[in-house]
């Protein structure tokens, strides 16, 4: 039965062929091409909401919420690099490209991250002066396309992230449609203006983990072993990927679950490839622990992190830090209701907008339109992001203290229970009120 109060309650909507499904069938029939959109997976997935913390009581002592310290700093990349990254909070900004985002949005991300002592990350399109200038700690992505890649920027970076995939589209390359290939974007990527740019999905000069080890060594040689090398993978066969990444020589591993966002790709890719973030973390941690590298090679987790509880749950499952993308854009002003009328003019609505690839974002974030870009004040937006990051940190600290932990990284799986059998099995923590971890025996 439909939940829409305007529909005759005697009418029953098909769960299989619901209105969204039928709309997509009609759209495909009319256009003959798949749907391209941004954002991340919109389907309901087992997620951090399905976990709860066991606060301290008789058997555990809590810490005073306003008096006792709870450390949030973390050092990333001290395995081989001469200059590892020290972050004041374990929440970083994920890679998002100039091109997908406006220059003002990139600047705002840098400002917000720097205000609270954390890092931001470039994307598929190179490093902009605005971004480097405003990011005290900047991670430079090394992607299959190598758009804008050059040794000068490589040496300006505080870390290098070799991207093998992202959670929204593991196995797929980047996409930036012609509307957003302006003169500046085209020049940075050495592409003709206005083309539909489809990035490579594989690196052009290496294949497989043995080659990757040599590639990592090359990057270390070029940068004289100064900065950490991250490896980013989309969450799929995470256990094996993490083991191979450690063997290849990564200092830090970034695992991006399928709720992670993208600027543009096929809807079928976003919704049907990869595994939930919740399922990926225990696989990654198991791989690190079996190699004796947990906490030695740091783990950053991303994909659908929205609040301090999500941060704390990631860390309790074994992550050293998290990365946020979609949530950071929302903090800047993405999908803001103040633009609802304009969203409607382009066939969307505030809270639903995902056509980032079209470059018409009324909020001035996922666009290269000079007039729309002006709407985002990078200083004010950066401050909003900093506020949001502070709230995430405070919330995570609140939960950690309640569990008696004086460091976010002291949270552990033992502090968690699950609300559903699925989440218990994926997170490898007991179903609430039981000692049962599905798949782990009794």
């Amino acid at each position, binding site marked *: 039965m439909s939940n829409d109060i305007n529909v005759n309650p005697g009418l029953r909507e098909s769960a299989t062929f619901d209105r969204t499904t039928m709309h997509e069938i009609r759209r495909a029939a009319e256009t003959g091409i798949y749907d391209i959109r941004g954002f991340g997976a919109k389907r309901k997935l087992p997620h951090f909401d399905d976990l709860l913390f066991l606060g301290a009581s008789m058997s555990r002592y809590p810490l005073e919420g306003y008096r006792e310290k709870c450390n949030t700093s973390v050092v990333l990349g001290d395995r081989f690099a001469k200059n590892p990254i020290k972050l004041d909070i374990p929440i970083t900004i994920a890679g998002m490209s100039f091109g997908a985002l406006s220059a003002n949005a990139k600047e705002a991300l840098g400002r917000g991250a720097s205000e609270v002592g954390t890092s931001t990350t470039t994307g598929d399109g190179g490093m902009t002066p605005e971004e480097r200038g405003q990011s005290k700690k900047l991670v430079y992505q090394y992607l299959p396309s*190598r758009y804008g*890649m050059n040794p000068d920027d490589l040496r300006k970076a505080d870390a290098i992230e070799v991207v093998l995939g992202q959670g929204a589209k593991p196995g797929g390359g980047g996409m930036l449609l012609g509307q957003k290939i302006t003169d500046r974007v085209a020049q940075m990527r*050495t592409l003709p203006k206005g083309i539909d740019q489809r990035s490579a999905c594989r690196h*052009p*000069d290496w294949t497989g983990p043995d*080659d990757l080890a040599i*590639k990592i060594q090359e990057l270390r040689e070029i*940068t*004289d*072993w100064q900065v950490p090398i991250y490896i980013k993978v989309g969450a799929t066969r995470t256990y094996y990927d993490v083991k191979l990444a450690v063997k290849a020589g990564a200092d830090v591993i970034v695992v991006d679950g399928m709720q992670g966002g993208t600027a543009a790709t096929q809807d079928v890719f976003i919704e049907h490839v990869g595994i939930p973030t919740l399922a990926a973390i225990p696989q990654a941690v198991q791989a690190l622990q079996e190699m004796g590298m947990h906490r030695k090679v740091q783990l950053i987790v991303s994909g659908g992190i929205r609040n301090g509880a999500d941060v704390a749950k990631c860390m309790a499952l074994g992550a050293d830090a998290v990365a946020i993308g979609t949530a950071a854009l929302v903090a800047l002003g993405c999908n803001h209701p103040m633009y609802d009328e304009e969203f409607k003019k382009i066939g969307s609505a505030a809270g639903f907008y995902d056509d980032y690839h079209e470059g018409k974002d009324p909020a001035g974030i996922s666009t290269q339109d000079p007039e729309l870009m002006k709407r985002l004040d990078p200083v004010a937006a950066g401050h909003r992001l900093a506020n949001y990051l502070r709230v995430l940190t405070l919330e995570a600290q609140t939960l950690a203290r309640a569990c008696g932990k004086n460091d976010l990284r002291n949270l552990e799986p033992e502090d968690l229970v699950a609300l559903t059998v699925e989440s218990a099995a994926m997170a490898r923590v007991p179903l609430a009120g039981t000692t049962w971890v599905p798949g782990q025996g009794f």
Partner: protein
Amino acid sequence: MKTFDLSEATVRDLNQALHDQSPECVEREFEVLNPKGQHNLACGIDQNLSVDIKGHAGYFCAGMNQKAHVTIHGNAGQGVAENMMSGTVRVKGDASQAAGATAHGGLLVIEGNAGARCGISMKGVDIVVKGSVGHMSCFMGQAGSLVVCGDAGDALGDSLYEVHIYVKGSVKSLGADCVEKEMRDEHITELTELLNRAGVDEDPTQFKRYGSARQLYNFKVDNVSAY
């Protein structure tokens, strides 16, 4: 001239010495002995140096080169001169796959043959191969020129952007959106200049030119079968 014997010194020693010339150059000529196919030799140079590698090199030799002139007196492994920005890299023997991958500038000369994907995703480099190139060469090539004095393998120039490709011998097949184009006077002039820079004695009028048909630059339903 500074000599590094890699049977005694390490690759790290060599690269650090080359990088140390960037802020202030006190030694312009380097000779590398007994490279024995080691990887990542002479990568990341940012100075007008002359480096002679007396033997075979492994993966990524002269990667991200800027300004330097590197000669490999032997064969080169995968990804020689990858992402080169400027300068010259010359391979006296054969080069493995992905030679000159993503390179933005400079000149890469391969006096022997090159393997698969020569010039993949090239972004402005000029590549001259005296021998033949393997399959998928110039795949997704964006800018620059690829000159092949021998033959080209399957799927030459697949998904090509704006690279100018010149081939003297046969082309086994062309990749998606790559077509043969008219060899006009300006192309003869460009090719003559490329051959002269590379020091290759060939008749430019014997070459054919290939480039992008530019039909796949934007998504069109009619082109679905090409993907």
